């Protein structure tokens, strides 16, 4: 009967209402988290050099895209920008969670294994070659990032090596890329250098809107695939040997997780440059708040990561409007104190 699912649902809702208070409070928080990227987007849309009050904002949103100045600002500048910030925040948080678990190292971040160096090298090579196209530069960065990751994987023989070897190989490949990058910047014309530095500091305004939908598709697929690996991630945090003893095919799982996390980072970096801090601290904050189980940690990190970066970008745009502070400054200034506060409250236990 068609009644049955409805009956089930209503029982579930009743159960939800009968839960103990603490449980209820937690549910409320989770619901809030689920909606937070939307709220953040609204805040981001109203913030900036042209301050829009809420009622006006909603009016413009109802009107839809158009040729009016305010319509153009909202629909063609701020909205894509918020979408990009959300994408980058989610991608970096997801890959941060993954790298921290696979490497069993709380200091790991998406850039640890040379991905940032590779991406930067790719992008800057394109820039110094005189390529300005917003279509090509992300592609060059993407290829650079994946090449670096592939190198690390091959050099460390990551199928069998320990996580320490992997980290060290990553740091070395990263240094190599950084050295080459410096050399390129030293050789490059001043104009290209300025652009490159802009890119290296992380910038959410560069992306071509055509890339946005592809980026989102990439991130959503990446998330779903990662999510399907959440039990495997839990097992890997116990160490390679224990994971294998519990029945995990460690080599294969590592390869899958690496590819996914690497692809997510590469996507974020190629669209927005090196936005720092998000991928390191968001996973920790989520772990402190909701525990280390990856089934919840992955979606929550993605949500919180995108919310966090959307807000940070809104602040970066409006604080010294019309000038922009680099968004990395805001993420660190907001994230570090909050993280330290949580750390102290939980008794210093990561």
């Amino acid at each position, binding site marked *: 009967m068609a009644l049955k699912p409805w009956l089930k649902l209503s029982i579930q809702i009743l159960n939800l209402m009968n839960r103990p208070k603490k449980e209820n409070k937690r549910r409320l928080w989770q619901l809030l988290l689920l909606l937070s990227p939307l709220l953040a987007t609204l805040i981001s849309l109203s913030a900036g050099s042209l301050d829009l009050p809420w009622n006006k904002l909603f009016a413009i949103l109802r009107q839809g895209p158009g040729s009016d100045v305010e319509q153009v600002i909202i629909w063609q500048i701020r909205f894509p920008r918020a979408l990009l910030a959300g994408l980058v925040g989610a991608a970096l948080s997801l890959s941060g969670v993954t790298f921290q*678990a696979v490497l*069993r*190292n*709380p200091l790991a971040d998406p850039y640890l294994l040379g991905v940032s160096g590779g991406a930067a090298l790719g992008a800057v090579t394109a820039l110094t070659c005189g390529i300005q196209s917003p279509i090509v530069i992300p592609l060059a960065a993407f290829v650079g990032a994946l090449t670096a990751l592939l190198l690390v994987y091959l050099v460390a023989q990551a199928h069998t090596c320990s996580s320490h070897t992997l980290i060290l190989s990553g740091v070395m490949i990263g240094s190599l890329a950084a050295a080459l990058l410096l050399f390129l910047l030293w050789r490059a014309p001043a104009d290209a250098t300025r652009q490159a530095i802009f890119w290296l500091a992380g910038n959410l305004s560069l992306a071509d809107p055509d890339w946005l939908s592809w980026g989102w598709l990439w991130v959503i697929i990446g998330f779903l695939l990662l*999510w*399907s690996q*959440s*039990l495997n991630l*839990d*097992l890997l*945090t*116990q*160490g390679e*040997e*224990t994971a*294998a*003893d*519990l*029945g*995990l*095919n*460690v080599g294969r799982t590592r390869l899958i997780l690496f590819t996914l996390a690497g692809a997510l980072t590469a996507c974020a970096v190629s669209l927005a440059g090196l936005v720092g801090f998000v991928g390191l601290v968001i996973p920790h904050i989520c*772990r402190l708040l909701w*525990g*280390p*189980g990856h*089934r919840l940690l992955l979606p929550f990190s993605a949500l919180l990561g995108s919310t966090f970066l959307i807000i940070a970008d809104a602040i970066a745009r409006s604080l010294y409007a019309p000038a922009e502070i680099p968004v990395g400054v805001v993420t660190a200034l907001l994230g570090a104190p909050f993280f330290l506060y949580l750390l102290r409250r939980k008794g210093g*236990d*990561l």
Partner: protein
Amino acid sequence: MIQINNLSFSFAAAEIFSDLNFSVSRGEILSIIGPNGCGKSTLLRLLRGSLKIQTGEVLWEKTPVEKIPPREMARRVAVVPQSTTIPFPYKVRELVAMGRYPHRKNLLSFQDKSDLYAIEQALVMTDILPLAERPVTQLSGGELQRVLLARALAQNSSVLFLDEATSHLDIDHRLELTELLVRLNREQQTTIVQISHDLDLAAAISQRILLLTEHGKIAEIGIPKKVMTAANLQRIFRVDVKVNSNPFTGTPQIVPLINCSAHQLNGLKIHLICGGGSGKTLLRRLHLTQAETTAGPLNQGDSDEAVATTLNIPVAQEVPFNPFSESTLLKAKKLIDQTGVLVITTQWWGEGNLPCLDLAEKAIRQGIAVYLLAQQREQDFTEGKAWGKIQQLQQQGAKTIRNEEHLFEELAQQLIV
């Protein structure tokens, strides 16, 4: 059930095992014992296929171990590791639930009724139900060990591998968990292979014991009474022990013969004639007893010389790989003249160190007590010259001592005299 044929293994250049042959039968408790570093943990890894086999084979019911996929293997055998650090604060219940991984049907969780039941049962049996909601990062070593055992129990496998799984436990929980293992073995026919340093407990519960030598060979395998003999333990662990039978259970019980009171020798002057590593244990132990020790003649670079120099023990030194010169022998004689006791270790005799025996003879004439640690004719490479001199020394009053323990007793006597 598990058959091990001609298994050899080496790390880099060092050979860990050569040519092991034994089997584990269904439903038995087999304890692996042996000195530190003899490869017990490595052996356990090879048995479950987590290390790649180099030569030989391990068969699980006639299937080679490398042909069994990881998940299938985890359903057959659960492992309780030595100890481990877990960097993230999983709750105890979550960690135990990981034991259900090889049985999972759902991609995202273990919510099956049988899973929940197995987890709950494992928590209760290891007495950690009160800890179920605590993060594992806050547990003590013993609590964590029980959590790891619970995870293995939740795996519901027919074989259990334990790598010193009770080493961090207090006596209460150690006995309780040992009882639990025995019960699992009796009631569910769980096969248990454990590495243990608690020899008494291993002897009490095991059907068979596998004793490994320092060089990864099987010294003996069989029922505890046959393996746990004073002679075996003395040979493998180089300790003086007596093996009694436990008055209550009748199982072998090891009584170490350490007489601490005999081990204070301050004031006693001892000279040691050793070489080639034959004296390094003695040098170290004499240093601990605070006896005034000297040694030599010894070549520089000899392992005994290295130990003596490190411990600030005066040594009559010779340059490397040279026979002892007149002046070195004179130096040694001066050292001997100042001591009351001369000890000659069990060593190999060649033309190079033959003059040392002459030094000993002179010492006897001066009235110095000379002790010979058990010498062996096979270690004489001077066509009988050294052996002749040794016998002569014995006739002149040098005492032969069976082992180092007895030497210490004798030395304590010397101190009283």
